[in-house]
């Protein structure tokens, strides 16, 4: 039986929360893009788990990188890798670490250094066009990542070259590390910035599947232009006790705390975490 998107997203979040054990993971950003990834892999991307390197596939490039637990979990739930492998997160004998790499089935390219994959995606999109292919390239960016000049350089070049098979999706969760973007280096007005760079830009609630349906229904949004989708999201979405708590962006938890959070995910009272938060500012 095929799961509904909310049910699949719930499973993805469970896996992500379990990955906070041991060495921890970037929980906040992984939970903010979980619905986005579930939507993309179930309704948008033309890619089959049995043929993850099919040249006719669509490409999903995770540029911000540190949200990869949500990608591992989504790929595992859909059969790209066994879900049993997820417990091997940070196991030195496996390759599931804090940032993506191509050795994991379904992962297209490594990331971690911010501001790289929009240009890599533009290169992939250019080759698809040269070959007359119908594949599309989707690049997920963090909003904090948009401080990087190379994002805007690639945005300028992609629009200049009319790459309408390229889609940038910004997981606009409002934070970079544990600092609010608008307090540090404001990104707003964000849509006009992308529009000014030549991208047809759509802004949606990144947790609302109806809005996701509409945003991705027709691509490119405008022929001859790349499409930008600004998805407003919430850090740690699904865990009310942690939503909007910027110090809980990277989380390393005890097994007991993990179980509390999973219970909270399923509607129990808010967890009371004692593990120390990570604060960069």
């Amino acid at each position, binding site marked *: 039986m095929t799961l509904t998107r909310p049910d699949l997203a719930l499973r993805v979040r469970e896996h992500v929360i379990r990955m906070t054990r041991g060495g921890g993971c970037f929980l906040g950003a992984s939970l903010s893009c979980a619905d986005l990834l579930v939507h993309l892999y179930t309704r948008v991307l033309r890619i089959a788990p049995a043929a993850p390197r099919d*040249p006719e596939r669509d490409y999903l490039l995770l540029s911000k990188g540190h949200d990869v637990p949500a990608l591992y979990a989504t790929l595992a739930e859909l059969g790209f890798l066994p879900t049993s492998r997820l417990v091997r997160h940070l196991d030195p004998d496996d390759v599931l670490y804090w940032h993506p790499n*191509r050795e994991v089935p379904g992962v*297209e*390219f*490594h990331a971690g*250094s911010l501001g*790289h*994959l*929009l*240009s*890599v*995606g*533009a*290169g*992939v*999109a*250019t*080759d*698809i066009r*040269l*070959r007359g292919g119908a594949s599309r390239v989707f690049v997920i960016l963090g909003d904090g990542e948009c401080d990087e000049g*190379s994002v805007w*350089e*690639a945005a*300028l*070049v992609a629009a*200049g*070259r009319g790459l309408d098979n390229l889609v940038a999706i910004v997981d606009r969760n409002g934070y970079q590390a544990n600092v609010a973007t608008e307090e540090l280096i404001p990104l707003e007005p964000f849509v006009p910035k992308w529009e000014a760079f030549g991208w047809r830009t759509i802004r949606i609630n990144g947790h609302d599947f109806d809005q996701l349906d509409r945003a991705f229904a027709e691509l490119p949004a405008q022929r001859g232009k790349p499409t930008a989708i600004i998805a407003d999201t919430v850090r740690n979405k699904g865990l009310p006790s942690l939503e909007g708590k910027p110090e809980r962006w990277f989380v390393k938890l005890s097994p007991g705390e993990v179980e509390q959070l999973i219970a909270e995910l399923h509607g129990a009272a808010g967890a009371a975490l004692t593990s120390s938060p990570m604060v960069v500012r």
Partner: protein
Amino acid sequence: MPAPSYERALAELAAADPAIVVVTAENRAAIRGLPAVLGERFIDVGVAEQTMIGMAAGLALRGRKPIVHALAAFLTMRAYEFIRTDIGIAGLPVVLVGGVPGFLSDANGPTHQAIEDIALMRGIPGMKVFCPADEADLVAALPALLADPAPCYIRHTAAPPACDHPLLGQPHRIETVADGDDVAILSFGLLVREALDARARLAAEGISARVLNVRMPKPLDEAAVLAAAADTRLLVTVEDHLQTGGLYSIVCELLVRARVRADVLPIALAERWFKPMLLPDPLRPPVQSPS
């Protein structure tokens, strides 16, 4: 037979291999005629070196062989982390061609002087570094470099023939362009010609000098360097590059690792910034400046 031409060679190689794409960050001096020949396989991204490298990685992921062009200083430094991260970590078959490297920057000044490019590029695991002595050396090496799955950085040159090339088309080998057994002069790029000039002057003083065209500093043809150390009394490294991390470093690292005792005299650039000069000027013997 017409003189070898980098541009014509690329056109011919691209005609034979549809995987080849030629990419540039608005730097067309050496490839001006290629857009007409290659059509959409000529990709000019504008003045955007980082994006050029990221795109080259994306193109290579799809099975292309990108040959990218920018001025050496901006290619190797502005885009360094993109080269290291997108091409180096992934080990993608991208050929990086740096224009006006070393002394070739003419009157542009320190911003355009790529005199640390070899140190930077050799620091990337898996990256090859090729510094041909002249355009013939460059053109003859292209088939081997393009067939190689490793990424490669090339110091571009359009120089007229610097010497005879006994090992033309074998870029991984050091060429002995003139033999001798007192001293061995190791050089690359446009200074190979100068090394031959120095050899003639040394001969007038009764000193016999071997001249080696070390066109590929990485991976190094170690046997040829060790043979020179065994056969001669002094190795002289000559390079238009900072002394740190270039040919002198490369040769010394080999000698220490191989436990070979040898005297090595570096002729390289000191660690400072240099005022610009048109090409012939830095090659002249130093003169006392008026005080």
